[in-house]
């Protein structure tokens, strides 16, 4: 539809338009600064409440929730330390988001790579335990995250019994867990000085035909012989 020329608009209307636009810009510039109130991580809603909020689309609820949670530590242009977060509540959020979208690895990545950067071992343990519990539900899909948790427990918080617990869970995991991941417990036992238990584990692995690679069998046989020489 062809429009009439601009000259036909009365001048007061043009002034009113320009003036109101400028007034809006002025109002925006006069807005008081937001109070610098730092919010605490709230308790998560229930699974059904979050689904209701996204009209029954649980995957979208999970994706929205994870982006919100991930950016929660950035409030009003300030980056909060993870020390300020309540890791008990954080874990509840991660559990909820994983329940909404069980195929996703995003909450596991946040737990095992982002939130573990906090310096407090107790908080790191909470994240690693979340990964461990998630792994027990779907070991075939989530073993890489437990492997990560095993390494973090061993090297970051130097909790060898915890690392061994995760490594043992990996060795009993699903059919997708590779042999090299199942062997993790051998090296942790060695570091813990549990040579007798290490001998039993290697012997068991060799005996039940778990291993097929000849080099791997040779390597573990050599370890076993070395252990037997060390035994009194």
């Amino acid at each position, binding site marked *: 539809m062809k429009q009439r020329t601009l000259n036909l608009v009365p001048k007061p209307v043009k002034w009113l338009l320009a003036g109101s636009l400028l007034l809006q810009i002025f109002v925006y510039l006069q807005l008081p600064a937001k109070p610098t109130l730092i919010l605490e991580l709230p308790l998560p809603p229930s699974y*059904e*409440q979050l*689904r*209701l909020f*996204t*009209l*029954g*689309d*649980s*995957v*979208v609820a999970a*994706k929205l929730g994870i*982006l919100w949670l*991930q*950016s929660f530590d950035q409030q009003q242009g300030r980056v909060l330390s993870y020390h300020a977060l309540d890791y008990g509540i954080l874990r509840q959020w991660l559990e909820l988001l994983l329940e909404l*979208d069980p*195929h*996703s*690895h*995003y909450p596991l*990545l*946040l737990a095992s790579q*982002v939130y573990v950067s906090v310096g407090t071992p107790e908080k790191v343990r909470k994240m690693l335990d979340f990964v461990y519990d998630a792994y027990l539900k779907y070991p075939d899909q989530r073993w890489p995250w437990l492997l990560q948790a095993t390494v973090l427990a061993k090297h970051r918080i130097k909790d060898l019994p915890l690392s061994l617990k995760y490594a043992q869970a990996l060795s009993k995991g699903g059919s997708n867990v590779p042999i090299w991941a199942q062997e993790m417990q051998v090296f942790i036992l060695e570091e813990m000085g549990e040579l007798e238990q290490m001998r039993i584990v290697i012997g068991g692995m060799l005996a039940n035909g778990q291993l097929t690679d000849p080099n791997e069998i040779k390597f573990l046989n050599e370890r076993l012989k070395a252990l037997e020489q060390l035994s009194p």
Partner: protein
Amino acid sequence: MINYVISFSRYVVIEALHTRLLVMSAILLGMGMGLVTFLGSITITETAATQSSFLAAFLRIIAVYTMSLWVITSVAREFHERSIDLWLSFPVTRGAFVVGKLLGFGIVAVMMAVFYGSILGWNAPWWQVIIWTSSLICELWIITNLSLFCVLTFQHAIPSFSIVLGFYILARSIDALQSIVHSPLNSGIGLMAQITLGAVELLATLLPHFDRFTRTEWLIYNTGTVMDLLHIIGQTAVYVTLLTAMSLFDFYRKNL
């Protein structure tokens, strides 16, 4: 009668093109792409999955909103301009008018769903995109039928759109509502609890369960099956028949 049906549906499609409905859809798609590009830039992992899920959810809502509003305003205008009186002064049955309109709206819904579905193909398996698009067509058919029924009944846009909106929100969340009223925390035995439970169960019986339609997870986890689609097609056939019967019943009784 068939000629009248075809004529009415043809004019609906022409109206969609003249009122730039598809251009509007393209503009909304551009907004959606902008939104997902922004969201993609703040994700740490699963970027493609996050983008696809948001774009699919956005396009689904936009398609429902646009189609519903367009159907309602188009027919409401015919009431206000008295063109319905003109149509009915010709030797044409009221049934031909309703069915012709529905056919036209249905064709426009297919065009919109295929347009949006083809965009999602860039990031999802084609087979899943076909299931998603077919499901969106079914969802839009139910919504256009409901919109036509509401506007034929109320003749005004605001009450009609309010009812469609309420219906859609309830149909999308009825499974979640059912789970909430059946949870152990809400298992009261008082009269109000029983009434609430009964009302939710009644709604669950009467409404199509839209949360099982057009699911985002199909696109990102490849989980859609032919059986899912067959269930949706079955539900759509039943509901479209019901809504068409309601529209015909109401329109034949209307004193025009």
